[in-house]
């Protein structure tokens, strides 16, 4: 008798080839997926940032290798009135312009959130100042503020005759500073308005209906419904806005180039002026590095002061 032993037969599972096995190996997979992103970050972010920080500790000039000089650049900047002028104006410019942008932007967003005719068209138009390349709008403002050919001066002096001399927008310290802030606000409103509008539209109308039934006033509805619910998006938009404004370059460079008498230099334009035009790369880098604490501070402020609400983490707000 022949005994046929049939073992527990199972279909021979084809061994997955080495490549498939490799891709099933989780640590490898993680590495493979992360590498491109990490590579990009290293090459385009970490390296330039690191180089900038390194340069700020050297006396490198354009066209000459520098040597390590420790914190000499920073010591010089500490007693440099122009640098402190730029720090002051950067903070002032950012503070005032951000406030202006948010006040007007929020107002505009509330208006647009109502039912108005041609709503989509209006919203598209609102975006225009933001879409136009900054340098172009800067050039337009440059003409508007021109000491001889400003349209405002023309209207006031030649048409209405209410003034005998042209407006002095850019040749003295404070008018120049306010003029630039006005240009920046004009440019920044659309970004704030459209972002906040998006936030407004996520607020459920039923909340307002309930509030209406309770006999709330318009101010109460804004204060206790709109504002708290808008706060998370407000925080994000404000962070971005502060960073954009603080690092602004094009408007100032195209309109005043930091003049008159360096009174409108932002840290970014002063860094460029010293580092590239003046050829003192090390010093320019030091100014740029000096911006980092401000930016980190602004970011932390936005996150911690405005956005850390318990209900965002799934707890009740008390």
């Amino acid at each position, binding site marked *: 008798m022949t005994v046929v032993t049939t073992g527990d037969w199972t279909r021979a599972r084809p061994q997955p080839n080495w490549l498939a096995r490799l891709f099933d190996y989780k640590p490898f997979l993680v590495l493979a997926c992360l590498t491109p992103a990490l590579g990009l970050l290293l090459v385009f972010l970490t390296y330039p940032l690191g180089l900038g920080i390194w340069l700020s500790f050297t006396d490198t000039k*354009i*066209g000459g290798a520098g040597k390590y000089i420790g914190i000499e650049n920073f010591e010089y900047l500490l007693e440099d009135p122009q640098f402190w002028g730029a720090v002051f104006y950067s903070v002032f410019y950012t503070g005032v312009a951000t406030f202006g942008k948010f006040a007007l932007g929020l107002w505009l967003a509330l208006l647009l959130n109502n039912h108005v005719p041609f709503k989509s068209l209006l919203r598209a138009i609102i975006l225009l100042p933001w879409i136009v390349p900054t340098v172009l709008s800067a050039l337009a403002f440059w003409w508007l503020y021109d000491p*001889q*050919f400003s349209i405002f001066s023309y209207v006031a002096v030649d048409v209405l005759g209410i003034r005998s001399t042209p407006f002095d927008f850019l*040749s003295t310290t404070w008018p120049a500073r306010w003029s630039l802030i006005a240009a920046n606000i004009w440019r920044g409103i659309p970004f704030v308005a459209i972002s906040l509008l998006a936030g407004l539209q996520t607020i459920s109308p039923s909340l307002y209906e309930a509030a209406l039934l309770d006999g709330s006033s318009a101010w109460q509805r804004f204060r206790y419904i709109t504002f708290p619910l808008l706060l998370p998006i407000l925080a994000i938009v404000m962070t971005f806005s502060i960073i954009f404004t603080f690092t602004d370059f094009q408007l100032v460079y195209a309109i005043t180039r930091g*003049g*008159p008498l360096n009174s409108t230099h932002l840290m970014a334009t002063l860094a460029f002026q010293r580092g590239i035009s003046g*050829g*003192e790369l090390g010093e320019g880098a030091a100014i740029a590095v000096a911006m980092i604490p401000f930016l980190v501070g602004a970011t932390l402020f936005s996150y911690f002061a405005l956005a850390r609400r318990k209900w965002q983490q799934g707890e009740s707000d008390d």
Partner: protein
Amino acid sequence: MAFIIRRRGAMALGASAAAMALARQATGQTIPKADVPPLNLPIEKGATLRLLRPARFVEPDEVIFRANSAKFAKETGVEVKVDLVGWEDIRQQTAVSANTGAGPDIILGWAEDPHIYADKVIELSDVAEYLGKKYGGWMFLGEKFGKRAKTNNWIGLPMGGSGGPLVYRVSALKEAGHDKVPTDHAGLLKLCQDLKKINKPAGFALGNAVGDANGFANWMLWSHGGSLIDDDGKVVINSKETLNALNFVKELYPTFVSGTMSWNDISNNRAYASNELFFTSNGVSLYFSLKNDPATKPIADDTEHAPLVKGLASTAPMSATVLNGMVFKHTKFPNAAKAYLAFMMEAEQYDPWLTGCLGYWSHPLKAYDKSKVWESDPKIALYRETMNNQFWSGYKGPITQAAGTVTAEYVLVQMFASVASGQATPADAAKEAERRTRRYYR
């Protein structure tokens, strides 16, 4: 930012057609040449050259330059690739090229550049001496910017320079009771005050205008006998002469048209062309742009040029924006490069170019005094002498990178502007300028 690139030229485009017509007649026939044995520069086999130069300011500048290069290729078989970059960018590109040892063989850069990279460029003494002998010698700024400090070794080959003398309206001066521009400070102040009284004011840039404002600041400083540094490169800006200059500008500034604190290089051109400004300083381009536009022709007819008011200086206290040629050591074809530069400076090529540029790049070799361009219009005769000016940026010291930085950083401009606007006392302003200058000359 097209308004800063080709800043002086932005208004001169209308002049192009006229300039081309003029350049066609200039063939170098009128230029006296000494009989000098030709340069012995055996051109390397298979040589090709790359050249970088600043953007054109009128069309013929580029067209004739390229035509001359093509002619060189035809005669020698050496192709020359000419690239033009914006005025504000060429200094950085020169730096990169010098440091990496790659890039163009020849760069026509700005005045100080060959001195900054003195050990990266080849010596051009043979070419410069040959040209000097053949064309009546080099003019003052030609030698100054060509030769390495305190030596006879040429490291740059200046091809031309642009100066900014006074430009004014004859009728306005007459109306104010003056028949000519004075040569002393008191006279200048009186003239500007009188112009202000008849509401036809003077104006000089005090804003961040690389060319015009630095020109004005240097003029004020030099005409009072001051200087940034002394012969040895020691910073001497904080001096009695500087204080005098600052006090003078404090008195002069109220006579200016409003807004000069925010002027850039194009502002005075625009104000002058629109009858808002009657007395300023500028390159020859302003006059030609007015002359070639029918709308502003009457202004051009009423315009005259005069040397900057001398004051205490013995000659017009003015420098020039010099176009300085250099050949890098990294070139594989040094002889071809030298032969090319010499070729471009020969009368057959240089005269049409000089003429096509309407004298904007004023010649550095004496024989070109005889060029037809200087007779084409008696009003531009003054620009003929541009390269004979006895001053340079960083006067009286050696030409260095620091001098270029002081200019680019507007150290002197801001010294004057802070006093004129009343934001600083003359003593404080001079001290601040000294502090900043010391930093760059450390």
